[in-house]
Every structure is written in structure tokens, then in C-alpha cells.
């Protein structure tokens, strides 16, 4: 690094220390830009792929009301993907590059979406637990040092709240329903609880990116701290449903005023991240098919725009 860069980097860090936001045209270290592009595009991919497990239940929703709600939620997730892609584009990466990275399997997305949605209670559990975990993460990101990311997160958080509430309401209905319905709800918690805890990423001591990201204030709260926050908020909600989370080590700790709990199966986590989850291949294939299938629409719309432009020019001439 030469002297000029060192000066710039010092000025950059003192801006961050002073809680000033970094905006697209400001100088930033290459690694800061790269970290953000990786994190924001992964985040965007997660929103987009996240539509697929829920999409599975659109035609099977138990009532018109539930169908309309689920459709609205899924549409929001598509919107979240868009906010995030466009925020990432301010860093100089193109939309096509990001799509290419997703479709080729080079980019990651949250591994929770590689689990299947087996029955209607899963839609409740996803809204409550998966969106709940996402909200915990995203609230912390609203104070991220990169302006466009922070602003996108504020918009996203405003919209997320209904996602979690509609999910919890489904869980309430099912746990107050027939014996079979209550069992379905419990079964859904059993399958989604641990993957939801995995959404916060590796333990702090094993997380490669954490300390630099904290210094740059891309990340404001550590993985373990956010995960604990989620556990503490969610266990009482499960109690209220009369359901349990599948962890026999779970116990209230008077001293820390929070829950002690067991250990995540990190082998499973790594395995799903590596592409061997139940639905990895199916999700990516569906994404690719949707993108390729929409190509003629994009081409036609662009051709129409070109033709209109030409007509206007001819008329003016």
C-alpha cells in the first residue's frame, strides 16, 4: 500500500469511527467494497431464492385469504431482492454479473432455503422462525456504515414485520386446532428450529469475516449475540403456542437472564452450504429456468422500446 492509500484509508476509518455513512462515490478500500458486494449480493440472492419454498404452497394454501397473504409476502421478498441488488449495483457490480454468480452456483445464499416445505405448518414456521431470524439480523444491519445498504435495510425491516406475524398466526391457528394440526405445527418447529439458528452463521470464534466487518461497521453485532437475542425472544413465543423447541439442553439461566441451549449440528450446516442439502439443486434449477424462461419477455420489451425510440426519431426528422 502506498502512502496516499494509507492516508485515504485512515481518513476512511475515522469517518466510520465518527458514525458517518459511506456513500457510493466516496473513496473506500477495495476490500471494503468486495466484502459489501459479496454480502449484499448474497443477501439479495437469499431474498430471491427464499421465494421458492413458499411458492410451493401458493396453490395449496388452505383458504383464499391465506393465499392472498402468502402471495403478498412472497412479492415483498422479490422486492427485497430488488432493493438489495440495486444497492449492490452502486458499488460497481452489474445485475447480470450477480445473476450469473447465483445461477452458476458460485455465489451463496442462505442455506435455510435448501430445506423442503412439506406441509402447510411449514409456512407458519417459516414466517415465524425464518423471517424472525432474518429480522433480528436485518435490524442490526440498519446501522451498517454503507449508506445504500443501511437504507435498503430500513425499508426491508418495515415490511418484514407482517411476515413474521402472519407466520405466527398460522402457528397459533394450528396449535389451537385438531390434535393432528397441533402435531403438524410441532413437527414443523422440529424441522425448522435448528436451521433457523444456523442462519446467524458460524460461532464468532470461527467466523473469518467478523472482526474486520465489525471494524468497518458493516456488521454491528456478532453472530452469537444475534443468535442469542433470537433464542431469547422466540422460546417464550413457542411456550405461548404450547409447543416446544427441539433442544433438550434448553434451560432458563437466572444469572444471565437468558436461555442456555444445546449445540448446532455444524456438519449439517457445512454440508448444506457445500451444496448437498435436500433442495440445493432443485432451487438453483428453478431459478435458472425462471431466468431463462423470462428471456423472451425481456428481449421483446427491449425490442419494443428500441422500435418506439426509432419511430420518435423518424417523426422528428
Amino acid at each position, binding site marked *: 500500500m502506498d502512502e496516499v492509500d494509507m492516508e485515504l484509508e485512515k481518513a476512511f476509518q475515522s469517518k466510520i469511527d465518527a458514525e458517518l455513512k459511506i456513500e457510493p*462515490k466516496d473513496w473506500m478500500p477495495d476490500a471494503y467494497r468486495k466484502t459489501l458486494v459479496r454480502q449484499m449480493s448474497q443477501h439479495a440472492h437469499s431474498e430471491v431464492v427464499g421465494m421458492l419454498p413458499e411458492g410451493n404452497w401458493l396453490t395449496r394454501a388452505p383458504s383464499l385469504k391465506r393465499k392472498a397473504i402468502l402471495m403478498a409476502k412472497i412479492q415483498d421478498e422479490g422486492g427485497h431482492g430488488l432493493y438489495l441488488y440495486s444497492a449492490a449495483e452502486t458499488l460497481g457490480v*452489474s445485475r447480470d454479473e450477480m445473476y450469473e454468480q447465483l445461477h452458476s452456483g458460485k455465489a451463496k445464499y442462505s442455506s435455510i432455503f435448501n430445506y423442503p416445505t412439506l406441509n402447510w405448518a411449514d409456512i407458519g414456521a417459516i414466517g415465524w422462525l425464518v423471517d424472525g431470524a432474518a429480522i433480528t439480523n436485518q435490524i442490526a444491519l440498519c446501522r451498517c456504515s454503507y449508506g445504500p445498504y443501511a437504507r435498503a435495510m430500513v425499508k426491508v425491516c418495515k415490511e418484514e414485520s407482517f411476515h413474521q406475524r402472519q407466520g405466527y398466526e398460522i402457528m397459533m391457528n394450528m396449535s389451537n386446532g385438531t390434535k393432528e394440526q397441533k402435531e403438524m405445527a410441532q413437527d414443523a418447529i422440529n424441522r425448522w428450529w435448528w436451521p433457523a439458528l444456523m442462519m446467524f452463521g458460524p460461532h464468532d470464534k470461527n467466523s473469518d469475516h467478523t472482526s474486520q466487518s465489525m471494524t468497518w461497521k458493516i456488521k454491528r453485532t456478532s453472530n452469537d449475540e444475534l443468535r442469542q437475542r433470537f433464542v431469547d425472544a422466540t422460546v417464550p413465543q413457542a411456550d405461548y403456542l404450547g409447543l416446544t423447541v427441539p433442544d433438550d439442553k434448553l434451560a432458563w439461566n437466572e444469572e444471565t437472564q437468558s436461555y442456555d441451549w444445546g449445540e448446532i449440528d455444524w456438519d449439517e450446516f457445512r454440508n448444506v452450504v457445500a451444496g448437498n442439502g435436500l433442495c440445493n439443486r432443485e432451487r438453483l434449477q428453478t431459478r435458472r429456468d425462471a431466468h431463462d424462461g423470462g428471456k423472451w419477455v425481456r428481449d421483446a420489451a427491449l425490442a419494443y422500446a428500441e422500435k418506439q425510440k426509432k419511430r420518435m426519431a423518424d417523426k422528428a426528422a
Partner: protein
Amino acid sequence: MPENSTESELPLYEVFIRSKNGLHHKHAGSLHAPDAEMALTNARDVYTRRSEGVSIWVVKATDVVASSPEDKGNFYEPNDDKLYRHPTFYNIPDEVGHM
């Protein structure tokens, strides 16, 4: 149609939204669309799903001319030494009352 995938990317539009009458349009984000009309429709779907707006502007991103952060010093400097543009520059006795 261009061969290269990035070249065939739909143009980028910046989106500005007036949340209610009486307020300025404010930058909301951006999106890709083949033309201005579709950009408007998409902006409605992406940025105003919960009646966040009563008016939308879309502007092709390539048509936005922006100052650059390096300008900070020189670009704004001409105003820095004109303190007489601020009301606090003038000493008006308290007896005169609020002015």
C-alpha cells in the same frame, strides 16, 4: 440485440417518490426496465406497495449528472467565506425583539 449479456441488460432507472402532496420527491432506489413507461409501472410495484407515494419520477441513471466527493473542497468553497449570508452574522440588540 447485443450479444454480450451485460450489454443487453435492461437500462437502469433511478426512482424518486413524493410520499404525499406538499413534500419533495425523494430518491427511493433504482430498478432496471426496458423503457420509461415500464420503469414507472415497476417502480409502483417495487416501491409503493403500501401507499408510500402519490407521485413517481423515474430518470435514466445515465442521465443523472452528479458532483463528485473529491469536489468537496473547491466546489463548495465559494460559499464558505460569505458568512454575511447567514442571519447570525448581524448583531441586532435584544431590545428590538425577535427578528
